[in-house]
């Protein structure tokens, strides 16, 4: 893991300012930050809140793998931070924050996009949607 990189599963609210600061680098020309937030509806059904659960040690290992692959694919990337929050999250709160600094903006955008898409496929985190009249683990229909 390179200096300045950060890969964590946390229970506390996420701070975009803090992750942007953590990837700051004098050789960077751009920082891209992605914040995934809790939406107030699912297929038109109002969502009350979400719950996230993780296998934290493995999830952090998978986040580190994503960071390593980002650095391999985009060598001009200066620093990567990926944080996923678990526990109960309210509408509008951030569940995931990804920050990438790079020499140029294109690499930062591409790396950030790759990181969130890969996270959703490989990192052992699970989301449960709570509605007025029930709750559903996301990822399987009819469960």
């Amino acid at each position, binding site marked *: 893991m390179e200096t300045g990189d950060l890969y964590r599963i946390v229970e506390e609210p996420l701070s975009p300012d803090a992750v942007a600061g953590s990837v700051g680098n004098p050789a960077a020309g751009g920082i891209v930050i992605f914040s995934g937030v809790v939406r107030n509806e699912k297929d038109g059904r109002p969502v009350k809140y979400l719950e996230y659960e993780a*296998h934290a040690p*493995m999830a952090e290992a998978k986040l580190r793998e994503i960071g390593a692959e980002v650095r391999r694919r985009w060598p001009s990337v200066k620093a990567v931070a990926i944080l996923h929050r678990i526990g109960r*999250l309210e509408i509008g709160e951030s*569940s995931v924050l990804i920050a990438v600094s790079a020499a140029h903006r294109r690499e930062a955008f591409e790396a950030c996009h790759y990181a969130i898409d890969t996270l959703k*496929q*490989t990192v*052992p985190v*699970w989301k449960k949607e709570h509605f007025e009249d029930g709750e559903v*683990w996301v*990822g399987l229909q009819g469960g």
Partner: protein
Amino acid sequence: MAVRFFARYREATGRERLELELPDGGTVEAAWAAVVGRHPELARYRPFTLFAIGNDYVDPDQTLRPGDELCVFPPVSGGGG
């Protein structure tokens, strides 16, 4: 060996762990079969299930070693809302 359940599977079985006695040379798939023997409610999830040992995903035909802790996952669903 031990099996750990997460998310939907933890709630479906009502437990976080299950201790299993498997014959030497047993595979991940054999462990799953033993899990389903104890918790038939999981059987229908097999096509969607992911297996992991330590910090890595493993194939169903991988041989288990004594002391392994096998994690069984439903499909992952992290990221934004």
